[in-house]
Each structure stands twice: as structure tokens, then as C-alpha cells.
């Protein structure tokens, strides 16, 4: 065999091996590196769901641990001030602080109640979008491994902000419904009906929180 034919053959062989390598690389899904915000949601929210599913805890212990967990994960004061709407500009500092305390307990009870519906399920982070510098929307799906039928995974989004190097959750959306926005809509409606009284709102939140802990009937039902 002539030298040039051998060399040509080697080059062709190398070329085809290279093509094969590229084909394999393209065929194997490249694992996308999760962003810091996605990691934050993935690790912490799964902890929360596991906590709610922990049947080894008493109700009181579960509530206490969930409260600490939620407090560490969120900026509760900032969410509270957002839900107050325009009244945050006119209320006194004392009334605002009283409201923030009441909101904190109320929000823990609400989140515990709503997220309990999904306890024992698995969270899968899909992707994230930067709404603004340091403001991210992390999109996830909650999957019920025990679903009897072919239930579609639930779309849950987390709005996460970077506050001085620490991530906090400031809102959660289930099927496109943002909880803090819904709470703001309710609270501003309540204030409209109650002469903009922030103390009245704080008092009502404390009542509702107690009722939720007791599993009682809602007092907000229309007559």
C-alpha cells in the first residue's frame, strides 16, 4: 500500500472518530449547571415539604419548626409591608410593627396550610429567569409520586431576591397565583371596608391565625 493511501486512511479514520465523538456529545443531554437561586430553592423548599410530611413530630413541634424554617427562608417584614399596600405610607410605625408581627404568625399558618397539601411530594427545579439584578423567578414542578392517575405536575414558582448576598423568598406562585399579591388584594379591600384601620387588620389576622391553628370555621364567610 502506498504511504499516501495509508496516511489518507488514517486521516479519514480520525475524522470519522471525531464525528462520532461529537455525535455522542450532542446526544447525551448536557447537565445544565443550576444557578445559585435554583440551588437555594431546590435545597430549602424540599426541606420544608419534608418537614410538613414528618409524621414523627407533634403538631406543636411541627408548627414551631415550620415557623423557624419559614422565617429563615423569607424576608417576612418586607412581604408584610408589601401586602399593606398604600397604607404602609400613612400608618404609624407602632401600627406597622404590630401589623408585621401579626402578619408573621398569619403567614406561617397560611403557608403551612397551603403547602401541607403538597407534603410528601417531590420538587423539581426547571429553570430560572432574572427579572432584574438580584431578583429571580425560579420555576419548579411539584410531582406526586403516588398519584393514582397521570396527574400533571403542579407548576410552582418562587420569587427569590438576593439581599446583601443572602437569598430570601419573597413570594410563591401556585398555578400562576402569587400569594403575596393575593394577600395584598385582600388586605387593601379589608382596609377599604374598615376605615383604613391597620390595627383592625392586625387584630383580624390574629383571630384568623388562631382559628387556623384550631382548625375552626373561617370567620370571613359572608352572611
Amino acid at each position, binding site marked *: 500500500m502506498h504511504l499516501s493511501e495509508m496516511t489518507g486512511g488514517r486521516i479519514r479514520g480520525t475524522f470519522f472518530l471525531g464525528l462520532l465523538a461529537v455525535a455522542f456529545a450532542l446526544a447525551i443531554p448536557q447537565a445544565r449547571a443550576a444557578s445559585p437561586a435554583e440551588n437555594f430553592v431546590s435545597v430549602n423548599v424540599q426541606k420544608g415539604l419534608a418537614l410538613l410530611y414528618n409524621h414523627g413530630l407533634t403538631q406543636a413541634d411541627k408548627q414551631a419548626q415550620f415557623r423557624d424554617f419559614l422565617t429563615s427562608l423569607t424576608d417576612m417584614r*418586607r*412581604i408584610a409591608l*408589601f401586602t399593606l399596600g398604600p397604607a404602609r405610607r400613612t400608618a404609624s410605625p407602632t401600627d406597622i410593627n404590630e401589623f408585621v408581627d401579626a402578619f408573621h404568625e*398569619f403567614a406561617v*399558618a*397560611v403557608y403551612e*396550610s*397551603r403547602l401541607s*397539601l403538597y407534603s410528601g411530594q417531590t420538587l423539581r427545579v426547571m429553570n430560572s*429567569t432574572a*427579572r432584574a439584578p438580584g431578583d429571580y*423567578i425560579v*420555576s419548579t414542578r411539584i410531582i406526586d409520586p403516588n398519584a*393514582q*392517575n*397521570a396527574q*400533571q405536575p403542579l*407548576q410552582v*414558582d418562587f*420569587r427569590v*431576591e438576593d439581599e446583601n448576598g443572602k437569598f430570601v423568598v*419573597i*413570594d410563591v*406562585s401556585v*398555578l*400562576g*397565583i*402569587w400569594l*403575596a*399579591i*393575593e*394577600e395584598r*388584594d*385582600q*388586605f*387593601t*379591600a*379589608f382596609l377599604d*371596608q374598615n376605615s383604613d384601620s391597620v390595627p383592625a*387588620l392586625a387584630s*383580624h*389576622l390574629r383571630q*384568623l391565625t388562631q*382559628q*387556623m391553628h384550631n382548625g375552626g370555621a*373561617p370567620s*370571613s*364567610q*359572608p*352572611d
Partner: protein
Amino acid sequence: MATVRGFPLLFLGIWLTACSTAGDDRAANDPYEATNRQVFAFDAKLDRNILLPTAAFYTQVIPGPVRDSLHNFLANIDLPVTFANDILQGETKRGAQTVGRFVINSTVGVGGLADVAAKLGVPAHTEDFGQTLAVWGIPEGPYIVLPFLGPDPPRDAAGQVVDIFFDPTTYLRYKQHIWWSAGRVSVSVIDRRARNAAIIQSIERGSVDYYASVRSLYRQHRQNEINNGKTNTNDLPNF
């Protein structure tokens, strides 16, 4: 879902164009709030005293697999309406998914009783003419609560009327057609109420103002449907 309504299309068309949403301040676009609250109170009483107990009875008496089959069947016969609106919105990929789901579930899924398409990875979605109008740029109109029907702003109400004409079963004429239609609507309503019982109870328990909560939930959920599940981050407020 296409439902039988008595509203003349012309009246709704005039109403729709006369009333427009007031920018981003959705809460302000409830000019009939006092009346809406009264109608809402009536609907909530009906829900508490009739629909919820019926849904609970339905859940207790009808086995889970049968309820799932009924749910799948009803969702399947709604697919022609979804398909028509997929096309009107220019969503050809979603339209193809809808056709795929209908064909697979109607055949392999035994007349729609089994959601085989979901197991094959063909995702479900719903479209209606109210969403189509939104995609075309028609504003929602003022927030309206209707007796028995609940939140139904003019755009959505008009859409429901049009969807009746997209539903092939509208054109079927057979003995006791009216009873079939009434039965379909009834079972759909009861099925949906039964499936949402836990979350609605959770929402009601944690509501400071249940009327305002439902208004916010309705609008946000509707916008999510119009956006096909995608979050429009520009619409989100600053904290």
C-alpha cells in the same frame, strides 16, 4: 367549558367595548363591587349548602377510578373547543397537541375514559374564546359576579357564548338532548368542585376578605391561562 347561557351576544359585545380595565390597578376595576359582594354571598351560600355537600357525596359514593374516567371523558369532549381557540390564537404546536390528545384518548383511551395521551407525554391544556379575545387585545371589562356562575367578567362571558358554537355536540340532535347537556354541565361542575375542595377550604380558612381573595385568585389564574402558564415577569410588582 361551553355552557348554555342566555346572554345575547350583541348585548355582551356592547358591554365589552364600553368597559375597559383601568390599567394595572385591577382592584379599582370593580365598579359594581357592592352588588358583586351580594351576589357572591348568595353564590357562597349555594356552594356551602348545595354544591359542596353534593361534591362530598359524589366523592364518597363514586369510586376514584370511575370519577377519574368521568373527568377524562368530559375533558376529552371539550377538546374541539380548545382546538378551535388554539388555532384562532395562532398556537399551531398547542393545536397539534390538542388533536393528538383527542385522537389518542378517543381511540386507545376508549372514548376518552382514559388519559393515555398524558402517559405518552402529550401535555394537556385548555383554551376558550375568552382567552382568545384576551390574546387579541380585548380588555377584560369590569369584574362581574353572576348568580350561580360566579366571577364572569364580560370578556369571559362573551367567550363562553361563542364556545357553544365551537362545541360539536351543540349540533347533535337526538332524543333527550337537553337532559344530556344538563347532565354534562352538572357532572362537570360537581367533579371540579370535588377536585378543588381541599384547596378552596384552605383558601377560605386563611382569607381576611374571601370576596377579595376570590377576585384576586380569579384574575391571576385567568391571566396565567392567557399566558399559557408562562410568568410575565414584567407584570410583577416591585417589593
